[in-house]
């Protein structure tokens, strides 16, 4: 069993009127089966309302499954006693960098998680230093988070999760509120952590460019998993992706259009360099 495993996971948001009668059921997750291996970098893609954020909240035991079961690091999320173990195993980074930083100084914010876990003072300092180092923010340790850029704040938030020594980091659209530079900065940090610290990464996003480096891509639509595989496999199915209201990376789309118009370019081009060398070959 992998670090995250879902079996026929279902989540329903139930809307009720004032008297508590059910007036509508919204099935946000519908029969999800996933199995994520330790150390993988998995990207979850989906349009707004596809259920990807609902899934993320399950991984941190913020929401409970309506039906089915979800195991995080072997703990069943339905059991109340496991909640802190789950939250320690699967750290979560949210969308808005301002609303998840608690400390008034960078290092104090990074120390917040370990403090909650009851880690010893000396060990907290060690972890804070290591985590800030890992995201490249060590020189800002005594700054106020208000003075940092969006990308830097998000890196501090990631460091705050890393300091809890999780097995897995779940990032729920961490770049949605950032400018292109901040976005690159955050994605670079995430993939570096995955490579060097061997943390399992689950990146939820709707930016295609960010998932190219992933080991596996899962595409969701209307609460169901509709496609999964390596990025190269998924991105060859341009038409299908468009049906799910997702874009493919511009280069891939260009390559696809060129091929459709009769040029001998292979499927699954992901980077500009690849396309350039293919065109040069012609």
């Amino acid at each position, binding site marked *: 069993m992998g670090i995250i495993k879902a079996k026929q996971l279902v989540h329903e948001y139930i809307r009720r009127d004032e008297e508590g009668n059910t007036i509508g059921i919204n099935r946000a997750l519908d029969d999800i089966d996933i199995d994520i291996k330790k150390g993988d970098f998995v990207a979850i893609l989906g349009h707004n309302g596809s259920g990807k954020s609902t899934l993320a909240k399950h991984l*941190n035991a*913020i929401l409970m499954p309506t039906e089915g079961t979800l195991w995080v690091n072997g703990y069943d999320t339905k059991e109340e006693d496991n909640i*802190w173990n789950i*939250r*320690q195993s699967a*750290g*979560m980074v*949210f969308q*808005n960098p*301002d*609303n*998840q*930083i*608690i*400390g*008034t*100084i960078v*290092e*104090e914010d990074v*120390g*917040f*998680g*370990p*403090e*909650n*876990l*009851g*880690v*010893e*003072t000396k060990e*907290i*300092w060690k972890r*804070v230093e290591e985590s800030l180092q890992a995201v490249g923010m060590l020189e800002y340790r005594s700054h106020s988070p*208000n003075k940092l850029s969006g990308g830097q704040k998000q890196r501090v938030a990631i460091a*705050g*999760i890393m300091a*809890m020594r999780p097995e897995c980091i779940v990032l729920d659209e961490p770049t949605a509120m950032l400018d292109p530079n901040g976005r690159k900065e955050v994605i670079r940090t995430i993939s570096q952590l995955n490579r060097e610290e061997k943390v399992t990464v689950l990146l939820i996003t709707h930016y295609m460019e960010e998932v190219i480096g992933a080991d596996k891509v899962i595409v969701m639509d209307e609460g169901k998993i509709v496609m999964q595989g390596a990025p190269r496999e998924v991105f060859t199915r341009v038409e299908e992706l468009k049906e799910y209201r997702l874009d493919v990376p511009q280069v891939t789309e260009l390559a696809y259009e060129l091929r459709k118009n009769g040029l001998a370019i292979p499927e699954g081009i992901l980077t500009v360099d690849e396309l350039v060398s293919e065109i040069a070959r012609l």
Partner: protein
Amino acid sequence: MIRDITIGQYYPRDSFIHKLDPRTKIIGTFIYIISLFFFRKFIPYLVVFGFLGLVIKTSEVPLKHILKGLKSIMFLLIFAVVFNIFLTPGDILWKWGFLKVTRQGLETAGFMAIRLVLLIMGSSLMTFTTTPNHLTDGLEKIMNPLKKIKVPVHEISMMMSIALRFIPILLEETDKIMKAQMARGADFESGNLIKKAKSLVPLLVPLFVSAFRRANDLAMAMEARCYHGGEGRTKMKPLQYHKQDGIAYVILFGYLAVLVIVKLISPF
């Protein structure tokens, strides 16, 4: 304009006073404030002035910076002084129509002014030399015994530090909303007081909505980072008394002793 609001802002220096434990500073300030009110003679105030001057000197916070803080209470000060001078009954020194100045009135007004100025200067010195985080940590530690009677000490201090963290964010947001509404023709500047107050309503509604949304997000983020109250929580920066705190306490009691002696022997 709105960003000029500052609440007892920390003045970073590396002085003896800055390095003191926040508990020492809180207790010290508390004792100092009480000491302002236990005599009605002028000479002991010279001791207080001397003591305050000494503390300001060691704190390395420029006097000008501290005096700036007095500006905000100017109105209150003038108000209190004027009322005390003219409305206190007693031996009449000067009379004009219904206005009369009495000896007792002058005395009360004088004490009032001195006490207010010393009070503000002393307590603002504490916030100038202590970071907000230290201050809340210190308060939490001092109020710790209250836990026994079910006062949520940890929660209060957590709330205070979160509030401090969000003040600049909410100010920035207010600024943004104001600009957005000004761009669409809202007028915050002209009109009388009532009109001005009314024009703030469209500002407050979105601000409140966003503050609640932020609070919701923050609570989720805190829970995701395993926050579950003060129980079983360790501290990254635990408070510890050092040698300099001992020295500070000795000086503080020295000051009190001198004050009591002066109070007993001084004729005025």
